[in-house]
Structures are given as C-alpha cells and as structure tokens.
C-alpha cells in the first residue's frame, strides 16, 4: 500500500498549470492597454523602455520577478510518494445497515451502508476528514454520531453536520462495485452535499 507511486493527477496538473500561471499576468496587463487611449499606451511604454537606463531596470525587475515565481514553483513537488488513491474495500455483502466500523479509517474513509433521503438502501464511502480543520472524527455508537475530537463537530451517519463548528457535511468519495462484487473506493474524487454532488451515481452503490 505504501509503495511509492507517482501521483499522476498531481504531476499532470502541475504541468498543465505552469504555462497557465505564466500566461496569467500577461493577459490583464495587455487588455487595459489595448482599451485605453494610445497616449496612455505610449506613456507606459516610454516609462518602461524610454531609455537604455529604464530598459535595463525594467528587464532587471522582470527577471527578478520571474526568478521569484520560478522559486515558488520549485517548492511545489511534481512527484509525490503518496499511497495510490484507489482502495479495494471488501465486498458488498460485508456491510450491514447502520454499522460503522473503523477498518478503513487508516485509509481515510468509512464504508457505510444506510438508507438515504429517498429511502434507498445504499453504500457510500465517507471521508474521515472533518470539514472544520481536518481532524478525524470518531464514531460514537451510543449516540449514533461522528464526533470530532478537535473542536466538537458532530455529524450524523449520513455525514451531515448538525452540531459544532463544522461548516458543511463530511465529503463522500467515489465508490463503485466491480463485476465480481467488490467495493472500490477512489479517494481522489470527492462529492460534496452542499453543491448537490451526492446525487451523482458515482458517489454511492445501490444495493
């Protein structure tokens, strides 16, 4: 589980981003100049490149900024040695309704079988990361709720917050059933209730 795997998504996102970030500052600078009067454009150009001296300072400043941005970009690693995001979590028949066990808590989720709002019997994967400050709540069987030890947020079995400072429900993770009846959880895709993503069929398995 812990073997180093290049996190493809991160690496790709990083590559895709780099040109975008560099392009971004250029755009707003170009647009207002195009809209404004020609005298103003000439004024900006003559201020920045009017003499050899000004040109030198402008180039110097620009290259220093480019170096700074490059250094900041350097601090974002392109390859991560984090565990793979797809986890096999037993088979569908392992789960009983209304039971929460901590078997996959160390992987960052609970797999729960429960009735949803439309009274369908579903299995879903609930992220163990509290939406307040990222602690891991504990399941309190007696009270039938998740309780976060850091600041006391409480969540129902569905993941919906009802007490404490958490601003929104726990996130659900992508889950699907393989042809031979196993449950696969993909931690890289998250579904948030408050923007209606829990209706996405990828966020639950119908039993």
């Amino acid at each position: 589980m812990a073997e180093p795997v290049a996190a493809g998504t991160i690496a790709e996102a990083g590559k895709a981003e780099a040109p975008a970030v560099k392009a971004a500052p250029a755009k707003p600078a170009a647009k207002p100049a195009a809209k404004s009067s020609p005298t103003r454009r000439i004024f900006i150009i003559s201020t920045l490149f009017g003499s050899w001296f000004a040109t030198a300072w402008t180039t110097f400043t620009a290259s220093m900024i480019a170096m700074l941005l490059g250094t900041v970009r350097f601090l974002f690693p392109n390859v991560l040695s984090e565990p793979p995001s797809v986890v096999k979590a037993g088979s569908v028949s392992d789960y009983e309704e209304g039971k929460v066990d901590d078997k996959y808590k160390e992987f960052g989720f609970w797999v729960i079988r429960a009735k949803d709002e439309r009274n369908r019997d579903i299995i879903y994967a609930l992220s163990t990361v509290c939406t307040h400050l990222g602690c891991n709540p504990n399941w309190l069987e007696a009270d039938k709720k998740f309780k976060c030890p850091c600041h006391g947020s409480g969540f129902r079995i569905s993941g919906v917050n009802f007490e404490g400072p958490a601003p929104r429900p726990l996130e659900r993770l992508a889950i699907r059933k393989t042809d031979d009846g196993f449950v696969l959880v993909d931690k890289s895709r998250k579904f948030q209730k408050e923007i209606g993503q829990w209706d996405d069929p990828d966020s639950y398995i119908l039993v």
Partner: protein
Amino acid sequence: MEYESHHLSAAMQTGLGVYFFLVALMNAAFAHYCYRQRQDPVQSAIWLGVALLFAVHGVAFITHMDLVMPEAIKELVNDVMNPVSYFVIAVLGLVAFLVWRRFFTDPIVAWTILQVGLLFSGWSMTDYTFQQIITKPDNVPIVMLIFSVGFFTWLPMRQAIINDDRLARGEPPLEKLEEDKVLVWPDLVYTELICMVICTFALIVWAITLKAPLEQPASSSRIPNPSKAPWYFLGLQEMLVYFDPWMAGVVLPTFIIIGLIAIPYIDFNVKGNGYYTFVERKFAVSTFLFGFVVLWVVLIVLGTFLRGPNWNFFGPFEPWDPHKSVPLNNVNLSDYFWLYLLGDAIEGKGWLAREAPGIILILVYLLGLPPLLAKTIMRSYFIRMGFIRFFILVTLIQFMALLPIKMVLRWTINLKYIVFIPEYFFNI
C-alpha cells in the same frame, strides 16, 4: 477513604508538604519585611500568623494525613465555571484592576491575592483530575505564564501609579531621576552575566526534573482526543470555536501581526515615552492589556486547562469524560431572519439574497461604524489623528472586537454564522 488515598500518592503528599513549607517561609520573610521596611508590627504579626497556618498545612501533608479538598467546594467551582463565566470573570477582573488599580497594586493587597492563589492551588493539587492536568510536562510553561504575567502586570502598574502621582505633583517620573550615565562594563555586563548564570541553572534544574513528553509514534489513524495545537496557539484554537478557520487561523492572526506593527504609527501620544504610566496613556494601555492578557493569555489558559475531549469545557475538578455530551445547536443569522422573523422559506433563495441581512450587517459594521465614531464619541481622536491613522486604528479595534462580539452572540442567541456562504467557503 481508600479510593481517595489511591488518588493522592505518598510522593504527592510529601511534595505538597514541602510546597506549603516554602510558602510559609515566604510569608515569614514578608512578615520580616513588614516589620523592618514598613515599620508595621500589626501587618508583621498577621503575616506571621499566615506563615504559621501554611506551616501547619506543611506538617499535615508531610505526615500524610490524606487531606483532600472538600467535595462541596470542588462542585461549587465546577458549577460556576463555564466558558461564559470564565471569560466574563476575566474581563471584569481586568476592569476592576484598572479602575481600582491603587487598591490592587498595594503590596499588602497584592500579597494577599498571591497567598490566596497559592493556598487554593495547593489544595487543588489534592484533586486527581486537577493534578493530572497541571503536572503534564508541557503544561508547566502555562503555570509559569500565569504567575509571570500576573507579576509583570502588577509590577508596571505599581510603578505607573507612583509615576502618575509624581507627574500630578509636577515632578519627573522615577526613571528620569536616574538620567546620569554609567559604564556598561562593569555595570550592565555583570548584570547580564549573573542573569545568564541564573537562567542556565534554572533551565538545567527544569530539564533534569521534568522529562520532555514523547507519546506514541505518529499514526494517521489514531487521533488523540482532545487534539490540541502547541500551547502558544491555543488562543487561536479557542477562536476556532467561534469562527471558521479562514477567520480564526488566517485573517485574525494576520490582523494581530499587522496591528502590532502598526501600534507606533497610530499611537500619536507623545507622553509616556520611556517610563511607566497609566494616566497619560489610558486608552493605549487598557486596549493592550485587554488584547494581551484577556484575549491571548486567558484564552491560552482556557484552552490548556479547561478544554477536554471533543473540545468540551470541563471545570478544573471535573474528570475529562470523553462521552460528555453538550448539545451545540447553533443557528445562522439567515435562519433567524427568514424563518423566525419573516416566516419565509429559506430554500430556493440564491446565496446573495439569503445572506443579504448578514452581509449588510457586516458592511455597516466595517464601513458605517468608523465615520459614525469619528462624528461622535471619538471625534477628538479623529481630529488629532487625521483620516488615515484614525481609519486604521478603528479597523484594527473592530477586528479585535469581532471575537468578543461573536462570543456574546453565541452565548446569548446561539448564533453560528453572521454570513453563511458554504458555496464559496465564506462564513463569518
């Protein structure tokens, strides 16, 4: 009886005995000081009596008489203590200290308060829960912090009162009496050397007597309950009860730093430069004391000693029960406005319409209040400071006041958020 003695170990009783003997010695020394320096035999006799009382305590504990604090007192303290009363007592205490500063900084009064505190601390140590929390190695600095902040609030205020009296009589402050210069070698250099030696000694004793904590190896699945930030950030963690992380963890700390740096530029008062005074800098000193003592130190003490599992509040003698359940049903301002006030449905409204009351309230607070203050109660400040300084001052104070305001709103009407836009993670 057996249950109690199990809780109060023999070593603990001996330790407490030694502690009470030391306090008795302190009082004997103070009695001597009253007699010699203050020429006050009555006071001297009183403190000799107090020393005797502490010595009796010392004998009782050192002979292992299994004395414990009466349950009734513990229950009373636990019942009185909750986040509201704790904070209100702290604020009222500061106000009382500033208003009756002459009374509180009198050495006899200050000494009395210290002795009551020491007596109460000593008795409290006989309680198992209290003892467990206080003696955690990482909590020792906070005990030091309490006593040092107490002492270093008393000391400057005492000097300030002496100076204020002198200034009222038209005399220069004490510090100005010693304007003549002395050579750094040997005066300052040797002071520093002695100070370093004492510090080194204290640090080594501390390091030998208390082991640095080391818990189980890190594990991302077993999360300790409660999970606390390092102690100096517990004031910020306490703010998280009332604000979202972006406010409590980013915006407000940023404002604290900016606000501190801005102090010399917005404090236009030229008086009080280089000597202790209160009368000449009432506003500046009161605001700073409120910010540092109440909103920082007092909240750290709260976060360290009184916040237990699930970040619930526990009285000082209340066992940390992880199953204690405190209902936290807080309501947003938008719910109050639409549901309770207008009886309207809240669903189906866009976030802008839904949160309009809260947004307007915040805008009025941040943008409407400064001009209002400039026109009314802070008019003289506005005139003397000018627009930019005044605006920065008021904005900083407004951000500082956000915390107590939100606290009071939470305690009185269970308000969760003034503005609640989870779509953009924008909650205030």
